[in-house]
C-alpha cells in the first residue's frame, strides 16, 4: 500500500524488491528478515551441536580420566596432533589417543564461548527475533535490511575465526569463556588472540542486530499496534536488544585492551611485579586484572538475561496459545521485564565475591541481586497462573514450555545461594555453579528454543514437524537433562571443584586410619561423574530424532491446512504461509491486545489482533496517515 505515486517515481531504487533474485540473492545474501532468521537458526543449531560435542569429549575425560577416547580418538589426533597424544601398551604399540590437559582447557573455554555467543544468543535473539518480530508487529521487514544482512555476515566471520583457532599451533583459547587476565594474556600461543578478534566480530554482529531490532519495534509497528498491544515476545526481544546494545560495548572495549595486551604488549590487565613461572614478567605493569573482570561481567550478567528473556517470550506465546486463555498479568510481565532489564546492569559484581571486594560493595551487589529475583519470580508466577483452569493442549511445543517452567524455577532458585556473599564463597568454584546456570540455559532456554522451533516451523515451511517424534524428543531430553545436571548440585555441595581435568580423581577421599574420617571427596560423589557422562551421551542420541524430524519434515511433514494452524491470535499467523517477501498482502490494522483467547460472546475461541470489533478481518483500503 506504500505504492503511492511518489514511490513509483523513485521506483528504480527499490528494484530488488520487485523481481525474483537468484539462488545467491535469495538464500545467501538475502536481506529478507525471514531468510536471515532461518540462516541464523541453522547456523546456530550447528554451533550448538558442535559446542555440545566438545563437552561430550570432556565428559569422557571426566568419567574415565586418562583412558583412550573411543570412536573419535584417532580422528581427534589426526586433526589436532599432539593435543590428543597417543598412549601405548607394554610393547610400545599405540593403543589409543587421550585428551591432554591443554586440550581439555581449550575445549572447556570454547564450549562456553560457542554455546553462549555462537549458539544460544544467535538462536534465541537473532533467529527467532528476526523471523518473528517483524511479523508480530505487522511490519514488511526490519527497518534496515542491509544492516541485518551485515549482522549475519559478521556473525559468520566471527564463528569461522573461532573454529579456525582450533587448528592453529597451540590450539584454541584455553583460559575459560570468561578469559580472565593475566591467565588469558600471558600464554605464548595465539588462541586467545583469535578468540578476541572473533569476539569483536560477534559483538559487532550483536550491536548491528540490536540497533535494528529496537529501531524496527519503535518505528515499524502496524497502525493500531500500540505498546500495550505488543505480544510479550516482542517486549522480551525489545529489552534484550537494549541489553545487547548497552552491555556489549564495555566488553568490546575490554577486548580491545586485551588485544593490545596480547599484541602490543601493553599492561592494561597485568599488575606490577607479576611473576610467571618463577620469573618476573617483562612487562611495564601498572594494570589491573580486576578491571577485566568488571568489564567482562558488566556484559556477562546482562548476557544471562539476553539468554533467558527471549526464551520467556517464546514460552509466553505458546502457553497463551495452548491454554486458550489470555495470559494472566500481561502488564506485570511487561513491567517485570523492563525492571529486569534495568536492574541487570547493576548486579554484575556478584560474580566477583571471591576477588576480595569489600563488604560494603558485596552488600550492595548482594542486595541488587536479591531484588532482581523478584521480577523473575513474577514472570514465572504469571505463567503458572495462566495455566490455571485452562483446557491445555499437550502438543510438543507446549510440553517443552511446561518443562521450561520448573526447570527455570530450579535454576533460578538455586541461584539465590550464589547471590548471597557468604554461601557463594563456599559454592563458587564448584559444580554447583555449573548445575545452577545450566538449569537456566539448558533445560530452561534450550527447551524454550525447541518449543519455538516446533511452534513456528509450520509458518516457516508450511508443514508440521512430526508430533510423535517430537514427543519422543521431549520426554527423553527431559529425562537426560535432569540426570546430567541434578547430580552436579550434589557434587558441588560436596565441594567438587569445577575445573579439574580428571574429574576430581586426584582428590579422591581416603579414610584416615586413626579416626576413620574420609579426607578428600568421597568416592560416591566421584562415581556420579560416570553417570553424568552417560546421560550426556544419551542426550546427544535423543537429539537424533529431532535432527531427522527437522530436515525430513521440510519435504514430507504434514501440510498445514490453514495459515493459522494453531488458531493463534498474533499477527504472524495472519500472513500467507510461508510469508512472501514483504510479509503481508495488505497492511494489517490492529484492534486488540495480543492474547484474546476464549473471549465470551465470540463464535470461536480466538480473536486475531487484526479482527475489527464486528465481523471478520477486512483489508482497510486507505491508511489514516
Amino acid at each position: 500500500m506504500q505504492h503511492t505515486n511518489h514511490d513509483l517515481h523513485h521506483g528504480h531504487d527499490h528494484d530488488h524488491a520487485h523481481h525474483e533474485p537468484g539462488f545467491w540473492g535469495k538464500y545467501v545474501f538475502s536481506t529478507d528478515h525471514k531468510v536471515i532468521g532461518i540462516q541464523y537458526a541453522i547456523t546456530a543449531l550447528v554451533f550448538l551441536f558442535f559446542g555440545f560435542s566438545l563437552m561430550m569429549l570432556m565428559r569422557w575425560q571426566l568419567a574415565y580420566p586418562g583412558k583412550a577416547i573411543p570412536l573419535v580418538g584417532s580422528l581427534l589426533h589426526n586433526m589436532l596432533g599432539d593435543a590428543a597424544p597417543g598412549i601405548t601398551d607394554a610393547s610400545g604399540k599405540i593403543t589409543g589417543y587421550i585428551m591432554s590437559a591443554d586440550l581439555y582447557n581449550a575445549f572447556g573455554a570454547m564450549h562456553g564461548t560457542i554455546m553462549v555467543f555462537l549458539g544460544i544468543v544467535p538462536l534465541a535473539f537473532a533467529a527467532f527475533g528476526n523471523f518473528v518480530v517483524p511479523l508480530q508487529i505487522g511490519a514488511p521487514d526490519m527497518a534496515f535490511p542491509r544492516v541485518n544482512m551485515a549482522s549475519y555476515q559478521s556473525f559468520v566471520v566471527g564463528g569461522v575465526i573461532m573454529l579456525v583457532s582450533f587448528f592453529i599451533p597451540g590450539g584454541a583459547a584455553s583460559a575459560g569463556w570468561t578469559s580472565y587476565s593475566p591467565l588469558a594474556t600471558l600464554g605464548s600461543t595465539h588462541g586467545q588472540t583469535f578468540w578476541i578478534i572473533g569476539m569483536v566480530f560477534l559483538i559487532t554482529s550483536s550491536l548491528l542486530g540490536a540497533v535494528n531490532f529496537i529501531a524496527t519495534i519503535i518505528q515499524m509497528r502496524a497502525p493500531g499496534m500500540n505498546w500495550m498491544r505488543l505480544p510479550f515476545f516482542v517486549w522480551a526481544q525489545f529489552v534484550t536488544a537494549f541489553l545487547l546494545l548497552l552491555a556489549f560495548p564495555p566488553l568490546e572495549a575490554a577486548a580491545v585492551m586485551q588485544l593490545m595486551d596480547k599484541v602490543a604488549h601493553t599492561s592494561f590487565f597485568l599488575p606490577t611485579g607479576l611473576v610467571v613461572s618463577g620469573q618476573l614478567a617483562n612487562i611495564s605493569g601498572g594494570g589491573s586484572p580486576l578491571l577485566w573482570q568488571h568489564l567482562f561481567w558488566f556484559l556477562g550478567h546482562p548476557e544471562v538475561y539476553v539468554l533467558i528473556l527471549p526464551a520467556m517470550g517464546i514460552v509466553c506465546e505458546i502457553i497463551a496459545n495452548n491454554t486458550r486463555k489470555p495470559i494472566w498479568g500481561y502488564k506485570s510481565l511487561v513491567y517485570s521485564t523492563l525492571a529486569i532489564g534495568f536492574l541487570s546492569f547493576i548486579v554484575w559484581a556478584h560474580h566477583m565475591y571471591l576477588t576480595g571486594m569489600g563488604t560494603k560493595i558485596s552488600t550492595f551487589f548482594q542486595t541488587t541481586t536479591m531484588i532482581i529475583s523478584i521480577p523473575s519470580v513474577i514472570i514465572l508466577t504469571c505463567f503458572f497462573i495462566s495455566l490455571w483452569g485452562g483446557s491445555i493442549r499437550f502438543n510438543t511445543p507446549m510440553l517443552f514450555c511446561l518443562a521450561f517452567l520448573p526447570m527455570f524455577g530450579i535454576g533460578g532458585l538455586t541461584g539465590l545461594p550464589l547471590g548471597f556473599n557468604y554461601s557463594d564463597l563456599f559454592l563458587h568454584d564448584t559444580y554447583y555453579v555449573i548445575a545452577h546456570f545450566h538449569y537456566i540455559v539448558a533445560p530452561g532456554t534450550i527447551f524454550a528454543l525447541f518449543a519455538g522451533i516446533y511452534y513456528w516451523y509450520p509458518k516457516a515451511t508450511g508443514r508440521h514437524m512430526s508430533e510423535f517424534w517430537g514427543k519422543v524428543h521431549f520426554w527423553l531430553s527431559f529425562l537426560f537433562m535432569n540426570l546430567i545436571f541434578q547430580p552436579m548440585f550434589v557434587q558441588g555441595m560436596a565441594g567438587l571443584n569445577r575445573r579439574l581435568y580428571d574429574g576430581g580423581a586426584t582428590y579422591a577421599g581416603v579414610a584416615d586410619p586413626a579416626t576413620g574420617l574420609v579426607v578428600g571427596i568421597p568416592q560416591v560423589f566421584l562415581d556420579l561423574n560416570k553417570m553424568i557422562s552417560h546421560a550426556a551421551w544419551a542426550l546427544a542420541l535423543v537429539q537424533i530424532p529431532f535432527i531427522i524430524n527437522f530436515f525430513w519434515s521440510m519435504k514430507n511433514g504434514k501440510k498445514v491446512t490453514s495459515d493459522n494452524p494453531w488458531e493463534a491470535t498474533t499477527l504472524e499467523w495472519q500472513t500467507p504461509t510461508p510469508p512472501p517477501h514483504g510479509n503481508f498482502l495488505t497492511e494489517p490494522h490492529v484492534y486488540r491486545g495480543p492474547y484474546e483467547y476464549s473471549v465470551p460472546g465470540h463464535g470461536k475461541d480466538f480473536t486475531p489482533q487484526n479482527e475489527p470489533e464486528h465481523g471478520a478481518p477486512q483489508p482497510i483500503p486507505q491508511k489514516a496517515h
Partner: protein
Amino acid sequence: MEIPYTVKPRPDTGLYNAKVGIWLFLASEVMLFGALFSAYILLRVGASAGTWPHGLLNVTLGTINTIVLITSSITVVMAWVSLKLNQFGKFKMYQAITLLCALAFLGIKSVEYKDKFSHYQIIKKDGTYVDGHMHGATYLDKEGKSREEHKFHGLSFKENNVEYSLKEVVLNGIEAAQLSEINEPHKDKEHKHEHKNISVPAAEIQKINNYGPWHNTYMAIYFTLTGLHALHVIGGALVIGFLWGPGAKMWRTEPERFTNRIEVSGLFWHFVDLVWIFLFPVLYLL
C-alpha cells in the same frame, strides 16, 4: 510492501528510521568510549607516585587538531544546511573541507605517533634514567668495525648475514635519578633540565624501550583511545566521502532521503568530535 518511514518521520515518534538507528548506535558508542574512560581513570588512580606522565604530549599539535575537528564539525552542519536550502554546490564545497580536515587531523596524529616511537627511555644498571629522542646508535660487527645508525635497531641485529651488536646509544634529552623527574617535570621548576645529547654505552643499559603502547599504562591508554578514535575518524570520512562522491547522485532522485543521509552521517561525525573534546584535555593537559 515497502519499508515505511525511510524518508518521512513516523507521526508518533516524529523520527525517520535512520535517525533512530544512528542515535541507538551512538548510545552504544557512548558505552564503548565510556568503558575506556573508566579504564583510564582506574589506571591513573591506581598508578604509583611518579609513574603517570604529565605534559608528555605536544599541546600545540593537540590544540591544532582540536581546532581542525571543530572546523570540520561546522562544515558538516553547513553542508546539511546547504542541502536544506537546495544549494548542492555549497554542500559539495563544505563537505570537501570536512574531508580535508579529516585528512589533516590524521596527518597530524601520525606525526605525533611517529614522535613517540622515536622517543626512548633507558634504565641504566645503576638505577638512573636517560630519557630523550634517539639521536643515533653505534653498532659493532664481529671484527669490531663500527657502524652509525640514526635509528635504534635493538641490542643486536642481523643484516646480510652479518651480526651487529650495540656499542652505544645517543639520546637527545635528560638524565634523571628518579622516574618522577621525567614524568612530572613541572613539579620541580628550579631544576630545569636542559636537553642535551647523552651517550650511553651498551654495557650500562639495563632496559631500553621507546614510548610505544608497551612503555607504560599511560602510553597504552593513549594509543588505545586515540587509535580507536582515529579509526572512527577514518570510518566517518569514508562515509562522508562516499556521500560526497558516488553516493551524491541520490540527490537527483531522492533529495529528501539524501539530506537525511547527510544529517545521519553528520551526527556520527559530531560524536567523533565530541569524543575528542574529552580526549584532548584528559590526555594532553591533565
